[in-house]
Structures are given as structure tokens and as C-alpha cells.
């Protein structure tokens, strides 16, 4: 469907923070330096599970240059969590009082005049632990004899999720073929280039200012206030430039907490930055999941029912993991119509670093299992994987029973485009294959477990006398380019140019509250708020224009390219700047200010809108060494109306690199709860030579709920890749990869097993 021609939207617009970022001017929390600032370091637990019997800080305190040493005893001991609505899910004391539950958990913090002294002081803190039996795997942790990690939590079951619709058992009855598989999905580190960092400054007037590397200044503000016993309004959080987030930076972290606690005791600024190693061992990760998937299908390829069980390794605390548990189960049904669907998800506590949200939010794991099994079923029954996906895929107007209503859906076009692309590749050489995977993702979550009294997103726009615009938004730019996207939406709506707009974000004192950058929510939710605010301001201008131009009220007025005019007679009008000046006088000099907000209502359980995509991965296997070479990734993508052209391409390519890493490189192996690769030598992040071409085919749809028809783009693109690679390897070598990451060794093992099976036949 083709829609209105836009002046700014989906044109080639530079990132508005670009100049700051390419000249080194951009100042990150990591770069913040305040007068009299002290440097903090954190002492971490060497044990996976232990009682803290005593902590002796005297020797550390005595070290010249050390200003303070704090332990849990020096805090209010508040158990916090981002699921504020549910007391029992607020289970984490950032500096624990009784016991530690994973290796790397903070037990004390030091502030000193230099980083070096602070680090030296850590060695002088004596902690007396009583080591307790520990458990590291969810399937072990639910056993009767397993140690209890949180008092009163039976069998270490942290949260459970049951999703069900239709008569599942009856639907299975109708199936001609039922297939069952077990899958194991690994964890993944967010590995933001900027490690967790915070600078806190508490002043004698009782006010705290905290510079934090966060995805949501508002969440940080609320959580900090809660654990420090301050009013939210007395906590100002600044998130200047943020060096990446990917889902790992909107909970309260130890950098924020310890810097704030020490600053409140010293009335001096305190800076705490994680080392890369700390960032690996103690800043949470993508949730490792065990999936049991049972799928029933008719001979003709019609999906009947799916029943899935999932155990996730929750690690020591809840964090955002509870949400990932739900979303994984929901998107495990995506993007298909099931007569009966049943999911039981279990998040189990273990003595490992906590798991949380990460780009894709549980869906990449779910798709790895679902999309591979569908291809295997197609092979078992001799069906065409494209046809089967088309036959069962979501369509516009479909309701996921009791869960979601699909207003726009370009899935079928996505499948058609990728089918064309794959066919165009013709026959591939030996040991090379193309695999496909389709999926969908949300455009912001509807759930409000943080219990925010504010609207989900809001914006305030102020028009200066010279026509320049101050746009205040609460949404957080963590690199994904939301500042630019918001500027584009504002410029389009007000009828001005992007360079007329100055975006203010990442400051709770000046920007309206917004839940922040997670769950792909900002383009749709903050975008709607910005559009509403700008329409409000524009209306005030046009009201005056009617009077000024003295025209018949039946005419529509609009502003485009800084020209206020009659829509039917574009030549009749006046310059936008003149209009602003005159309107100001008419309003007795009051600034023209527009307000906008967005809170979803009656949009189902999950999200107001869903993006759809299909991806193909072209990969080659070295049959002798098992080494995988990715030749190309191609994605057909329905994100509604693209807003930020450069940003969209960047998100797609970035998602591909992160998702490929998850598929065949990145892993977080542990021994007795100890992470074995907490550095960038042993933790493998894709580098330029490994990165394949990653093309995009935009499928043009219009999402009624989104600003100018836009919906999610970027996060969902991490979902299909691991499955697509798995399918590529299946097509190339005929082996089924049920465990992530797909390493050369696992490939060779599967090849050997295949040989043995064939030998038996």
C-alpha cells in the first residue's frame, strides 16, 4: 500500500548526534570527571553460594587515600527489582547482607582518591564466608535435594508462565504427524562497548545527581530513589551518550548503586566503572534456555497444535528475566496460526550470574527451536518450507487468541521475496546451503510491572521565536538513533527541517518520564508522543494563521518545508518563521508549547503492533574441520513505514552481526559457576572479516497504531538468524543442530553421528 509522500521521513538524514560522535566530542558517563571526584571499586564474591559471616574493612579504611568502604550493612538493605509490582520478584540487594548467590556478586565497595588506591584497598578487605552447596543448572536446581537459593522459594522455581489457547489435546488428535525435539540455547553477553559506569554526586541539600550508562533514565531514577530512601524528584539521572545497551542496562546495576551510596556518605562525587571482566562476570546476560517442543501437523502442511516446555537458567536474581520468560513463550508461537497452543515456561534460580533481557528478549531462543523444527518436519513429510510458512502464517486482522491483535502484517510478502532470492541463487556447491527463518516481534511492551504512574512515553515541544524547536523526550538514545528518529518525526509533523530541531533526552530533570529504550518501544510509543506534541504546537500556530490569513474556515491549512499554506492552494500562505513571530505576539509572548503522550489501551496482552520478517542465511561448512563460513544474509522486513533510513540499515546490519555471533561464536561456558571466558580474547565477538553482506528488502505496510505507520525495527532482527543458520547447515550437510552456539566441534560430532546412523541402515 502506498501512502502520503513525506518530506523528511525515510529520507537520507544524518544522525543528529553524528558530529559529536565522529569528532570525539560525545561525552559518555565513562568520560565524566567532576571536581573532587573520587574513584570507586567493587569487591566481588569468589564463591557461587556462601553466607557472609563477617566483613572486616578496617585495614582497607586505614590505607592512605581511601575515603570510605561500604558493605550491605551501610545500606538500607532494600531488596529491589524492576518488577516493582511484585514484592517477591524484588529479590536483589545490590550489596547483599546475608549471603552471596553467584561468583562476582558485589559484597563491598571502596572509594579512594585514585582508582589504583581503591583497587589496592579491595585486597585489604577481609570477608569471612561460610561456603554453601551450590547448583548451576535449572534441571538440577528443581530437584528436591537441590540447595535453596532464596528462602521460601520451593525447588528454586522463580517465576512460571502458562500460555494456552484452543483445545491443544484435541488439535493434536487431528495431526497426521507429531514431532518432538529438545533444544539447548546458550547465554550471551551484551558486551556493550561502554562497560557499566556511573558517577554519583550527592550534595548537602539532599539532592542526588547520577550520570549513568542506562537505557532508561527514568527507571534508574525510580530504582535509585527506592534503594536510597530518597524521593524520585530528588534524584536526577543524566544519561549523556550511552555506549550501547542491548537490553542489559535498564536495571539497577552495582555501578549506579555503590557510587550513589558512597557519595551520600561522603557528599563528594564518586565514579564507578566496571572493568571488561566485571562486565562479563557480573552484569547479567541473555537467558540460557532448555526447550522441549512438540508440534502436530497435517499431511497437507496445516499446523494443528504445539506444546512447549521451557526451563530457563534464571541465575541468582529475577531482574527482567520474568518478562523474557513470557515473551519467549509468546513468540515461540510466532508468526503462525495454531489451533491449539500451550507453553509452560519455568524460570529457575541457579548460582550463576543473573539472566535478563537481551535484544530479542527470549525470542531468538524460541525461534532457534521453532523454525528449525518446522524445516525438519517439512523434510520428514516432503513439504516445501516456504509453502508451509505461507499457509500457516499470520495475516492482517488475525487475532492471537486472548493475546494479540494483528493490524498490519507483511509476512506473506516477506516469504515471497526471500523465496525469490533463494531461488535466484540456483544450485549451490557442495557443503554449502541456504537456510530460512521467519518471525515477528513487538513494538513495545504493554505490561507495566514497573508500576509507573506516568504515561509510557511523553514529549514536550517548544517553538522558539526564530522557528527553531526544542524537543524534550524521555526516550533514551543508546546508539540506536532514537534522537534522530524523534527529530525526523517532529520535523515531518511541524513542517520544518531536521536541523531546526534540537532534541533533549537522557535527563530526568528536564525531560518527561518515559519507560526508556527496551522492547523496541521507542519508535512507536515515543514516536506517537512526539507526533502528538508537535500536532498540538502546530495546531496553535495554524489557529493563528486562520485569523491572520482571514480565509474561509472550510480550507485546510498545513505547514511544509517551513511554509504555512492552504492545502488546496499551496502558493497561498506565509513563511513558518513569520507565523511563529506573529503568533507569539498574539499570545502575549507566551512560548508555543505542545505536549504529547502515549499509553497503549485495549491492545491485547503484549504489544500494540508487530513487525514481521523472513531471513535467509547462506553458509558453507568445512566438512573436515567443521568451520563455518557465512557468505551472506538477506532479510525481507516489514517494519511498517520506515522513518530513519540510515538508522534502519544500521539496525539490520547490527542485529545480523550480534545474532550471527549468538548462532556460532558467542558462548558463556561456566565451571562450577565460574565464567571461563570473561575477556575479549576468549569471548568471541564478530569482527569485520567475519561479517557477511547483510541485505534488506523493505516490505511496505502501514501500521495504524504507529506514528506515520511505523512499527518495530532492529531488535526483532536478532530473532531469526540462529535458526536460519541451523537450517542452512541442515540443508548443506543434513545434520540437525540442537544446541547453541553451533561450534565446529558440534558440527563434526553431528556429522560423525550421521555417518554412524547411515552405517547402521
Amino acid at each position, binding site marked *: 500500500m502506498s501512502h502520503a509522500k513525506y518530506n523528511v521521513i525515510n529520507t537520507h538524514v544524518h544522525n543528529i548526534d553524528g558530529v559529536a560522535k565522529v569528532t570525539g566530542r560525545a561525552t559518555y558517563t565513562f568520560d565524566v570527571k567532576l571536581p573532587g571526584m573520587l574513584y570507586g571499586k567493587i569487591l566481588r564474591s569468589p564463591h557461587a553460594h556462601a553466607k557472609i559471616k563477617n566483613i572486616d574493612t578496617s585495614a582497607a579504611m586505614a590505607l592512605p587515600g581511601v575515603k570510605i568502604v561500604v558493605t550491605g550493612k551501610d545500606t538500607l538493605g532494600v531488596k529491589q527489582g524492576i518488577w516493582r509490582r511484585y514484592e517477591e520478584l524484588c529479590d536483589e540487594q545490590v550489596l547483599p547482607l546475608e549471603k552471596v548467590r553467584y561468583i562476582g556478586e558485589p559484597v563491598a565497595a571502596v572509594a579512594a582518591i585514585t582508582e*589504583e588506591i581503591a*583497587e*589496592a584497598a579491595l585486597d585489604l578487605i577481609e570477608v569471612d564466608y561460610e561456603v554453601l552447596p551450590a547448583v548451576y543448572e535449572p534441571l538440577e536446581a528443581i530437584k528436591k535435594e537441590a540447595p535453596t537459593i532464596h528462602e521460601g522459594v520451593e525447588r528454586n522455581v522463580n517465576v512460571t508462565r502458562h500460555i494456552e489457547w484452543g483445545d491443544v489435546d484435541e488439535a493434536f488428535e487431528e495431526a497426521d504427524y507429531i514431532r518432538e525435539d529438545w533444544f539447548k540455547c546458550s547465554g550471551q553477553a551484551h558486551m556493550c562497548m561502554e562497560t557499566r559506569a556511573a558517577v554519583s554526586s550527592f550534595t548537602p541539600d539532599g539532592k542526588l545527581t547520577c550520570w549513568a550508562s542506562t537505557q532508561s533514565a527514568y527507571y534508574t531514577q525510580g530504582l535509585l530513589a527506592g534503594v536510597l530512601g530518597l524521593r524520585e524528584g530528588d534524584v536526577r539521572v543524566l544519561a549523556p551518550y550511552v555506549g550501547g545497551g542491548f537490553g542489559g542496562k535498564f536495571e539497577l546495576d552495582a555501578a549506579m548503586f555503590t557510587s550513589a551510596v558512597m557519595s551520600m556518605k561522603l557528599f563528594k562525587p564518586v565514579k564507578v566503572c566496571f572493568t571488561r571482566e566485571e562486565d562479563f562476570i557480573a552484569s547479567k546476560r541473555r537467558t540460557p534456555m532448555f526447550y522441549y517442543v512438540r508440534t502436530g501437523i497435517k499431511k497437507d502442511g496445516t499446523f494443528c497444535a504445539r506444546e512447549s516446555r521451557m526451563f530457563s537458567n534464571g541465575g541468582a536474581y529475577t531482574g527482567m528475566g520474568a518478562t523474557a520468560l513470557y515473551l519467549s513463550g509468546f513468540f515461540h508461537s510466532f508468526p503462525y496460526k495454531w489451533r491449539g497452543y500451550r507453553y509452560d515456561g519455568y524460570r529457575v534460580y541457579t548460582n550463576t550470574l543473573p539472566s535478563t533481557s537481551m535484544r530479542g528478549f527470549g525470542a531468538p531462543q524460541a525461534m532457534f527451536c521453532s523454525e528449525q523444527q518446522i524445516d525438519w518436519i517439512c523434510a520428514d513429510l516432503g513439504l516445501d518450507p516456504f509453502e508451509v510458512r505461507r499457509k500457516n502464517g499470520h495475516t492482517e486482522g488475525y487475532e492471537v487468541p486472548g493475546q494479540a491483535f494483528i493490524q498490519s502484517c507483511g509476512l506473506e510478502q516477506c516469504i515471497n521475496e526471500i523465496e525469490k532470492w533463494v531461488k535466484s541463487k540456483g544450485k549451490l556447491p557442495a557443503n554449502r546451503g541456504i537456510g530460512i527463518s521467519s518471525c515477528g516481534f513487538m513494538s513495545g511492551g504493554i505490561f507495566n510491572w514497573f508500576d509507573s504512574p506516568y504515561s509510557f512515553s511523553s514529549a514536550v515541544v517548544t517553538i522558539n521565536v526564530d522557528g527553531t524547536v526544542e524537543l524534550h523526550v524521555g526516550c533514551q538514545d543508546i546508539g540506536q538513533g532514537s534522537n534522530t528518529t524523534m527529530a525526523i518525526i517532529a520535523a515531518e509533523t511541524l513542517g520544518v527541517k531536521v536541523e531546526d530541531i534540537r532534541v533533549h533526552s537522557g535527563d530526568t530533570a528536564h525531560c518527561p518520564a518515559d519507560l526508556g529504550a527496551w522492547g523496541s518501544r521507542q519508535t512507536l510509543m515515543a514516536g506517537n508522543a512526539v507526533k502528538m506534541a508537535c500536532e498540538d504546537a502546530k495546531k496553535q500556530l495554524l489557529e493563528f494563521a486562520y485569523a491572520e490569513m482571514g480565509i474561509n474556515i472550510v480550507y485546510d491549512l498545513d505547514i511544509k518545508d517551513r511554509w504555512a499554506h492552504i492545502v488546496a492552494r499551496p502558493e497561498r500562505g506565509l513563511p513558518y518563521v513569520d507565523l511563529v513571530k506573529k503568533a507569539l505576539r498574539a499570545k502575549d509572548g507566551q512560548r508555543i508549547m505542545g505536549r504529547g503522550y502515549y499509553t497503549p489501551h485495549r491492545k491485547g496482552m503484549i504489544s500494540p503492533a508487530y513487525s514481521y520478517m523472513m531471513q535467509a542465511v547462506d553458509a558453507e561448512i568445512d566438512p*573436515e*574441520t567443521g*568451520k563455518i563460513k557465512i557468505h551472506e544474509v538477506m532479510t525481507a522486513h516489514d517494519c511498517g513505514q520506515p522513518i530513519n533510513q540510515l538508522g534502519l540499515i544500521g539496525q539490520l546490519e547490527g542485529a545480523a552481526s550480534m545474532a550471527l555471533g549468538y548462532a556460532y*561464536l558467542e558462548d558463556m*561456558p561456566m565451571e562450577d559457576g565460574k565464567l*571461563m*571466558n570473561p575477556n575479549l580474547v*576468549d569471548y*568471541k565477538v*564478530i*569482527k569485520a*572479516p*567475519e561479517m557477511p553482506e547483510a541485505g534488506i528488502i523493505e516490505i511496505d505496510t502501514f501500521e495504524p497504531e504507529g506514528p506515520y505507520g511505523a512499527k518495530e525495527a532492529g531488535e526483532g532482527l536478532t530473532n531469526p538468524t540462529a535458526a536460519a543458520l541451523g537450517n542452512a547447515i541442515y540443508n548443506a550437510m543434513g545434520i540437525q543442530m540442537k544446541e547453541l552456539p553451533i561450534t*565446529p*566441534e558440534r558440527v*563434526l560430532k553431528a556429522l560423525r553421528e550421521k555417518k554412524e546412523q547411515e552405517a547402521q541402515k
Partner: protein
Amino acid sequence: MINDFHYLKPASLKEALAMYAEHDDCKVICGGQSLLIVMRQGMVAPEYLLDIKHVKELSYIKFDEKDGLRIGATTTHREIEKSDIIAKKYPVLVAMEEKLASIQTRNWGTIGGNLAHADPAGDPGPVLIALNAEIKFGNSGGEKLVPLDEFFVDYFETQMEQGDLVLEVHVPAPEPKFGCAYQKFNLLDSDMGIVAAAASVTLNADGTCKDIRIVLGNAGPIPLRVTKAEDLLKGKKLDDALFAEAGTIASEECMPVADIHASEEHRRHVLGVLTKRMLKKAFEQAQTAA
């Protein structure tokens, strides 16, 4: 954090050797690409640090048709990679350097430092041994010249004693009908090898194998020559079957250690595969060589 140390900056080689002789608890830094990491981890904390980065006498690349190639110890990897004469006479060295870590590391890191560090996973070791290189090191008392495959004695240990500096690497002039190939197996292009194999083949006029060297990287405590596999091929008319057999022998002869990146079994298997492939590649080069 790096421990404190006294910084020694000699102006000449002579002064460097003298200073090194004077101070017992002293380490040598040149490019420091490996040293500074272990110093930061506190694993190495010398009282004195001797900086030879700017000792110009040790920074050179010389080639002579008879004498062969001489590379000074403080020559950077990047200088070797960019050397036209090396590209012409020893292309395998350039190919190896191009895959050694990153450009930044090659710009500052040096060949002498790399060899003295004696990491069994290092790239230059296996290739230079396959090229039959010798290494010259010495102290204020005098110099020693040893075949490179005798230079390494254990993990991060060489024949050098306190006071010894690496001075020069000497690679003999390439013989006629000679070929040499190197490949590492890794997950990322810029990584050290999980395992690696270098092979060189010299053929007689009649096409039989005159000399052969198979050197494995990260397959044991030192760059490992697998002599059983070599002996199988010496004097024979080489073919794919022999290369495969040599690979099998090499995978038994090597002694890799498992870590999170690969099991011992997988390492042995891949070493066998690489050995076979590098032998074939070196052989084909030798056949076409003048």
C-alpha cells in the same frame, strides 16, 4: 594495575646489553603487545624494565641471494609484512604476518619480542622453523646462534638466560623446488590459532622428497616438529595418500591441551587435517617452483 618498576632506556645495543647484565630482576620490553597484558594482570612484575623499542641497530631487513634473509629483533611485524623482498622470496612469511593479530599490534609489536615471548600459539615460530630459520641471541659476554626449533624449550620458555637479548633471525636462502605453507584454525580471522600447522617441502630433481618439515602451532609446549610424520615422507614420491597418512601420524604425535575453545580430540583431528592440507599446498608450490 601494573606494578611499579624502574625504567631503563638504553641508547644503543651495547648499552642495552650492559644494562641488562647489571640488573637481575629485569624484563625487556619492545613492542610490549604481550608483556603489558601479563604485567597488567600482575603475572609479571619486574623491578626493572629495559626498553629496546628504539634500539635502531636491531631494526633491519637484509637479503642476500647466498646468505638469505636477516631480520633484526626490533623489526616490527608490519615491516616484515610490507617488505617487497620478503614478499618475493618468502611469501609464506608475509601471508603469516597478514593474519597475525591486528594491524595495530603488527605496527608496534616486533618479531624478536614475539619469539622471545615463546607462546606456542604464536604464528612466526612454526613458519620460521619450517623455513629452517636460526635465531641469534646474546648478552654482554657474547652471542649464540641456534636453530629455531631448538630455541624453544617449554611454554613461554626459551634457551635464553637472564641477560640475553634476541638479536636476529636468519632464514637461509630458499632452495630450488621448495615450497612452504602455513594455516591456522581459529574462529576469528585475527585470533591466534586454536591450532596451526606449517609445512615445507623440498624436492629433488627427480621429484622425490629431499627435505620436509612439519611444524605444529599450539599443539604442545613449543612449536612442535612432528618428526615421525616427516620421516614417513622423506625420500618418497609424494602424493595425497601419503599426505593423509602423515596427517594421521601428526594428529597422534602432537600433544595439544584442551580448553574452552576445543577439546583435545578436536585439536588432534584438526591438526591432522591442517597437516595434510599444508603438505599438499607446500608440495604443489615446490613442484611449480624454479
